């Protein structure tokens, strides 16, 4: 490989790292993304000059098709479809690493053990990422057939043993393959198929609210797959970029797990949503329903309001209503903030993107750790489509399945208004004592229409 190509890769590696560094503030993040995109462009152009690249027609075909699909999907789709799209793109990245490994194997089936193992790693990690991301995408799209819903955790007897067997098969088969590097393709194809199956099996039992963890984990895998592909073709830029992505996914996974007070193994293997069906009756008392007019009077008198959005906000598409209400309150002299729980929604940072889409200024968004100490001074907390992330049972009730999970402690505010469709429990069927507290008011109905009703009251006065 010529020294110029290597120097260009060095510059690209610098730009990739710089791009991630600039991501540390919303002010510089766009520049960071641009730096990263430039690094990618530089890498691709330089690679085309590589002496090994002699046939350009197939590359052209792939690039044209890929660019067309990628740019269409990225610009035409609704922003609400973002989680699915990110999962899908992620799967494609893993798929590409798999194909690179497969092609290297096909070109030269007899390899020394180390190269054989790296090829297999690229194929297996790429395969798991590909099939796992497709299933995750299907879950986020709520694909279903008759009464079957892919988004629900799918558990069946023997699931763990099957997963374990698949993993064992991959390890033993991989070892055999590495030691022996057999000429027959059967073992290679069997291992590839097992990787696909493993990806599906790992994601299928995950419940909706655990999706942020899985998405982050798959993100990490796609980076590791690129890394492995880098070892296959002995290319340092693949390894650097892949490692950066792998690290990023790992950190996000860790943050998501901490925010749910659960270990990664617990998320991956327990099928939380299905197991924790033990419902407990609330601490007594009845919920206190209010009308939009009542809500208006409460909010109108408030000096400090905190909105707490959850997945229900995304479902009801109520983010614009929230923003409008927030602006009216601000004009009314009220201090308005938005508190976002790390695992609210279906992917890391989901709520932040929704609120940003509705033009909510990002300096009004506060994190859980910052808002909780100030809760006593908050007049009104408005909970929109969030449930488990504001459930005080996680703090008070050691019997609760979510005990120990950090929550946004809305119940410590003077008044809590909960916008909710009905009294049904959250995704895990966990009773929420918040709804029965003395300072809680329930505003029943679709979040969007409830907000519009409150907005109507504001505008009428």
């Amino acid at each position, binding site marked *: 490989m010529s020294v110029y190509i290597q120097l260009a890769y060095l510059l690209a590696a610098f730009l990739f790292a710089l791009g991630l560094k600039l991501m540390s503030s919303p002010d510089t993040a766009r520049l960071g993304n641009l730096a990263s995109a430039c690094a990618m462009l530089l890498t691709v152009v330089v690679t085309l000059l590589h002496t090994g690249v002699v046939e350009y027609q197939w590359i052209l075909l792939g690039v044209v098709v890929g660019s067309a699909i990628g740019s269409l999907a990225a610009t035409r789709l609704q922003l609400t479809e973002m989680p699915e799209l990110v999962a899908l793109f992620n799967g494609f990245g893993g798929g590409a690493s798999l194909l690179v490994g497969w092609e290297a194997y096909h070109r030269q089936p007899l390899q020394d053990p180390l190269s054989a193992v790296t090829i297999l790693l690229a194929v297996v990690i790429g395969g798991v990422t590909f099939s796992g991301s497709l299933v995750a995408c299907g879950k986020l799209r709520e694909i279903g057939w008759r009464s079957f819903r892919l988004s629900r955790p799918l558990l069946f007897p023997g699931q763990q043993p099957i997963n374990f067997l698949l993993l064992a098969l991959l390890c033993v088969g991989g070892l055999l393959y590495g030691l022996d590097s057999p000429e027959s393709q059967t073992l290679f194809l069997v291992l590839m198929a097992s990787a696909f199956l493993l990806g599906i099996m790992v994601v299928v039992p995950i419940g909706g609210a655990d999706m942020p963890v899985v998405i982050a984990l798959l993100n990490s895998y796609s980076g590791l797959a690129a890394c492995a592909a880098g070892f296959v073709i002995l290319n340092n830029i693949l*390894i650097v970029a892949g490692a950066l992505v792998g690290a990023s996914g790992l950190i996000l996974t860790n943050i998501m797990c901490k925010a749910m007070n659960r270990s990664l193994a617990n998320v991956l293997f327990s099928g939380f949503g299905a197991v924790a069906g033990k419902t407990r009756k609330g601490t007594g008392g009845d919920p206190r329903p209010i009308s939009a007019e009542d809500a208006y009077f409460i909010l109108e008198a408030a000096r400090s309001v905190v909105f707490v959005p959850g997945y229900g906000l995304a479902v009801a598409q109520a983010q614009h209503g929230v923003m409008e209400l927030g602006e009216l309150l601000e004009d009314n002299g009220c201090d308005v903030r938005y508190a976002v729980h790390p695992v609210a929604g279906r992917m890391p*940072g989901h709520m932040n993107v929704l609120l940003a889409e509705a033009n909510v200024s990002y300096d009004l968004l506060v994190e859980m750790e910052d808002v909780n100490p100030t809760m006593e001074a908050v007049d009104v907390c408005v909970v929109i489509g969030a449930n488990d992330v504001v459930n005080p049972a996680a703090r008070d009730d050691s019997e609760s399945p979510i005990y120990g999970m950090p929550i946004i402690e809305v119940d410590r505010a003077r008044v809590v208004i909960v916008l909710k469709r009905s009294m049904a429990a959250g995704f895990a069927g966990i009773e929420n004592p918040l709804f029965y507290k003395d300072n809680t008011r329930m505003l029943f109905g679709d979040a969007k229409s409830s907000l519009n009703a409150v907005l109507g009251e504001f505008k009428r006065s």
Partner: protein
Amino acid sequence: MSGDLIFLMFILMLAVFLGLELISKVPSTLHTPLMSGSNAISGIALVGALLAAGAADSTPLSIGLGTAAVALATINVVGGYLVTQRMLAMFKKKRGDRQ
């Protein structure tokens, strides 16, 4: 060959540390753009795909695998960066504008 591998493992180790340091400074507000942006970076497998699809003396299967790899990786790269840019364009401070 194995000397190369060892050298690349050093790079891998240092890059992982660099990644962990850089990413832990990203605020949670930007977690989604971070994810989709780093997702686009994972399309770097495109380099391997280009080398595979552009190699001389390929069998039809090699060409097929290489071309498919180029297409998938390009979707990942182009789509990933565009989506990220679209999302980041929405993150603005708007307070000043309203007055």
